[in-house]
């Protein structure tokens, strides 16, 4: 694959890819949530990203990454609801603020953006690593991206791989946050739906050219 430039157009393609993937894997995400939650995570995210799709067209062609991210943030906040709505909403909002007025993101900027997103989630939801939440996909992703060096493509790939592993690694955990925390030991053996959707979002980023 050629060199990738994470400009506004890329950001838009990425968001479109996320929307397509969420739609395709909606039932799977909801099934994860049925096991240890309330069976709506796929439905919630799909409602949100479909709304995002509907609003992307209204953006300027030359919109910056930050502008796209902000649109995602406000749309998720006003359409998703549940826990994931404010958490992902905050993540995209903080990401947008970190992106600032840059026209494109290089590797260090990407790390800043991912870090801001993760910190936003932690600030809102107060989850720590190992609490069996989406944080368990975000934190390894941030760390892997930082360690990946100056190649933004490599950073994205590393983040996606780490998020995927992080999601799998939630399976043996007892949950301490979110609905799954009501279950105690009974949550063991199930993957956290939010961690899985985070892996999906970052995988879509790595695959977006």
């Amino acid at each position, binding site marked *: 694959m050629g060199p990738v430039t994470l400009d506004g157009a890329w950001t838009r393609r990425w968001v479109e890819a996320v929307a397509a993937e969420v739609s395709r894997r909606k039932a799977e995400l909801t099934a994860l949530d*049925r096991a*240890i939650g*309330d069976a*709506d995570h796929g439905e919630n995210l799909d409602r949100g990203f479909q709304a995002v799709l509907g609003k992307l067209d209204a953006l300027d062609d030359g919109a910056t990454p930050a502008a796209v991210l902000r649109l995602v943030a406000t749309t998720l906040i006003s359409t998703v609801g549940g826990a994931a709505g404010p958490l992902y909403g905050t993540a995209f909002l903080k990401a947008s603020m970190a992106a600032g007025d840059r026209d494109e993101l290089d590797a260090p900027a990407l790390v800043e953006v991912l870090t801001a997103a993760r910190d936003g989630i932690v600030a809102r939801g107060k989850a720590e690593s190992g609490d069996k939440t989406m944080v368990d996909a975000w934190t390894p992703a941030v760390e892997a991206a930082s360690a990946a060096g100056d190649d933004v493509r490599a950073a994205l790939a590393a983040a996606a791989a780490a998020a995927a592993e992080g999601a799998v690694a939630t399976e043996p955990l007892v949950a301490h946050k*979110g609905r799954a*925390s*009501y*279950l105690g030991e*009974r949550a063991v053996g199930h993957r956290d739906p939010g961690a899985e959707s985070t892996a999906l979002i970052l995988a879509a980023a790595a695959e977006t050219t």
Partner: protein
Amino acid sequence: MKKLINDPGKTVDEGLAGFAAAHPDLVRLIVDPPFAVVRADAPLNGKVGLVSGGGSGHEPLHAGFVGHGMLDAAVPGAMFTSPTPDPILEATRHVNAGAGVLHIVKNYTGDVLNFETAAELALAEGIEVQSVIVDDDVAVKDSLYTAGRRGVAGTMLVEKLAGAAAERGDSLDQVAEVARTVNSRVRSMGMALAPCTVPHAGEPSFELGEDEVEIGIGIHGEPGRERIALEPADRIVDRLIEPILEDLPFQQGDRVVLLVNGMGGTPQSELYIVFRRAAEVLADRGIVLARSLVGSYVTSLEMQGVSITLLQVDDDLLELYDAPVQTAALRWGR
């Protein structure tokens, strides 16, 4: 999945449209942004506004409790999904009559976060907002290792008593204080015989074997505390009421409101069988049954099951409980 619905994606909207059409004397529907149910005569000059809300599927909670002496607005989210901040903010604006607005929020991560955002936005507009988090469910351990206790059937008692306080003219601080007091004295626990099916999901939220029941169930179809073999009703009541009694704890001589709440698909006769045993246990402990409420008020669609709620009352709280209320689902005194 067999349901009396049209489009699974429209059940909430159509249900609310029907609700508003059935009760024009009590409520009106704000549809932009969708949706909030607001008291027909709101805002009421000088009265503190009460707003609650949460995922749909728990009807009559909350819309059924909008009216004189209870809520000023209810904000329904998608099925079992807390509403977003926009309609909460819009409802808050509609019921603000200058005396401030109280948000009554069930303790779920999503509800707390979305109400929090709405409250911040309202404050930024100059509306005075306070929030009370309801967390009456003793099935969940309240510790650093959980999201904390859930808000379940006790929520309607918080709404009733705080609503009565607002109606008699209490200030925002006072109404919030009543709500917090009620929350501190109310405890609940529920169980399910059979799960419900969320329309868009199309399959039951959980599976239960032919002889299994789920103890400590939440109201979102999320699994409960433990799964046990079916037992006689009296034994199940004992399993629910013991942890409640121990928790506060409720003691000899206490006066209580006993709420036996159906989860949606439970026949009324079974609720009264449960009530009978619960009242018996209270009598055995020397706890005084001050008031009784039996019905399906805080539900999970057609889930079969029941929850038991005890509220410890004094003369003040009893006066608020007895005060007139005129809503679609709860009505007395006018």
